[in-house]
């Protein structure tokens, strides 16, 4: 590992730790008095939504395919982890251990579902794939409505309340870090090449289907972990929670945040998932507001608010201290060019439609 990498990991870790301390200070000092618990809940909601949205962004942004069935993977993860944690409860595991095992089980179950869907479906592209993913999510929902183990259409309740904000924060950090590393790895680069031009990718010796299926599995895995946190936060759920609207909500959060930008996903998901809670009285109009925002974003910033720009604490610090200014400036210029080209590409796409 290069020294500059180590420094940047340290800086980023410290940055995240500061945010954590800040939130902890706010909650522990009870500034909000009796509603502290309520705000903690909103933050937990934000944590699992971030994981779900970021994982969907792997498919939509990195691989360039639309998946309209992400709620299906979330529900597989949610039910699988709830079943596992109920089975293991009272076996002497500490709470955090039980929670992690349950989440991992949820992730693996969702990953397997992703594999099962991905192998046949990922030979398709574009609209056809989107339709197959919708169908998958509906099939899963109907299955969960009929299985006895998931409550069979009735509410599955009595799930242990294991999600608390402090744990969820760090689980979210770990998940997003892994996804970020995935995007930046050789594997992620390969998947992006397939997105850019699958013919050229195949001609360069890339096994297109393999890489697409694996990305889909990784995305489903993290969706499952997000679902696991959801289950252990809500403690009760019915299959209809994970309907098409939920998938559409996640997808619109990805698009508004920025297709291909994990920064966009994190900020978009945190903001959009806490917003309806903060304006409870208008909550019925949430989907309406979403669609209006989505239309506005599509008109004025088709690549999403952040495009595929990533926030970098290291770069910010460098620019503030004036060191390595040129490199940073170059990066910024390149980022702008990239975003412009993206916007143009989207314009062209729209014109084509």
């Amino acid at each position, binding site marked *: 590992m290069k020294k500059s990498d180590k420094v940047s990991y340290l800086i980023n870790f410290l940055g995240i730790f500061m945010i954590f301390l800040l939130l902890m200070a706010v909650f522990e000092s009870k500034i909000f008095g009796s509603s502290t618990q309520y705000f903690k809940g909103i933050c937990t909601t934000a944590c699992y939504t971030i994981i779900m949205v970021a994982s969907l962004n792997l498919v939509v942004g990195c691989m360039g395919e639309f998946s309209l069935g992400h709620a299906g993977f979330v529900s597989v993860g949610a039910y699988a982890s709830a079943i596992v944690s109920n089975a293991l409860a009272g076996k002497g595991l500490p709470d955090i251990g039980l929670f992690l095992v349950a989440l991992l089980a949820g992730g693996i179950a969702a990953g397997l579902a992703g594999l099962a869907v991905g192998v046949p479906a990922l030979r398709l592209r574009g609209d056809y794939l989107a339709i197959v993913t919708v169908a998958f999510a509906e099939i899963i929902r109907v299955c969960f409505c009929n299985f006895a183990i998931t409550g069979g259409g009735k509410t599955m309740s009595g799930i242990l309340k294991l999600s608390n904000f402090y744990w969820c924060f760090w689980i979210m950090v770990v998940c997003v870090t892994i996804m970020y590393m995935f995007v930046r790895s050789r594997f992620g680069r390969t998947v*992006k090449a397939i997105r850019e031009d699958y013919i050229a990718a195949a001609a360069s010796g890339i096994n297109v289907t393999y890489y697409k299926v694996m990305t889909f599995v990784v995305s489903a895995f993290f969706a499952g972990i997000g679902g696991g946190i959801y289950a252990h936060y809500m403690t009760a759920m019915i299959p209809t929670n994970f309907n098409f609207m939920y998938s559409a909500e996640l997808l619109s959060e990805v698009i508004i945040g920025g297709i291909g930008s994990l920064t966009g996903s994190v900020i978009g998901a945190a903001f959009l998932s806490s917003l309806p809670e903060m304006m409870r009285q208008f909550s019925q109009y949430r989907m309406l507001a979403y669609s209006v925002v989505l239309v506005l974003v599509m008109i004025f910033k088709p690549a999403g608010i952040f495009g595929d720009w990533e926030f970098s604490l290291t770069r910010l610090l460098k620019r503030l201290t004036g060191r390595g200014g040129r490199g940073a400036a170059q990066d910024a210029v390149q980022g702008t060019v990239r975003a412009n080209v993206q916007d143009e590409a989207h314009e062209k796409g729209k014109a084509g439609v």
Partner: protein
Amino acid sequence: MLEVKNLEVSYGAVHAIHGVSLQVRDGEIVSLIGANGAGKTTILRTISGLQKADTGEITFDGSDLRKTEPSRIINLKLAHVPEGRHIFAQMTVEENLEMGAFADVKDMAATMAEVYERFPRLKERRRQLAGTLSGGEQQMLAVGRALMGKPKMILMDEPSMGLSPLLVKEIFSIIKEVNKQGITILLVEQNAKMALSISNRAYVLETGDITIEGDARELLKDDRVRKAYLGQ
């Protein structure tokens, strides 16, 4: 080096290639000319495994290409420059070249230095997004990316497509130079005159059948070819 025997390919009910045989010897430039829809691109795509053949044999350097996974064909050092400059538009020039070395990352830096030496223009623009390059530069990038895999043979599909006459000349001189370094080339072209002038041998393809084959220089004088493809 490459031998195709009795190749038949169809798209659903449409029989595109009816029993084509051709061979390319070590160190040659062989061109495959013909009108639109004759099946030139189909033959190249079938050789590199992007399209399934119905029957026939394709052997490259002793290995049966029809039994080789498409993603493994590049490991046999057979590169394909697809039609229409398929480059990774949202990646930088350098990233595009790196993708060319995907199957074999050994000595990537050295190969990249060689490619940059051959295409100084690409070096100038190596941090630029490939989508912002001009048509000629994109074609150079596509060729450069194929060279990153250190191929023994390159399949080139319509390298002159959509380029100005001046750039067409430049691309063809690049192809000749690449060939001089010992890389065998199978060239598919609509620009028959240009293709024939740099090739050793050529095949003329008409709606899925090879109708004329022979020495490229002789084909340039052949009446049938002159009439149908050279407009003389």
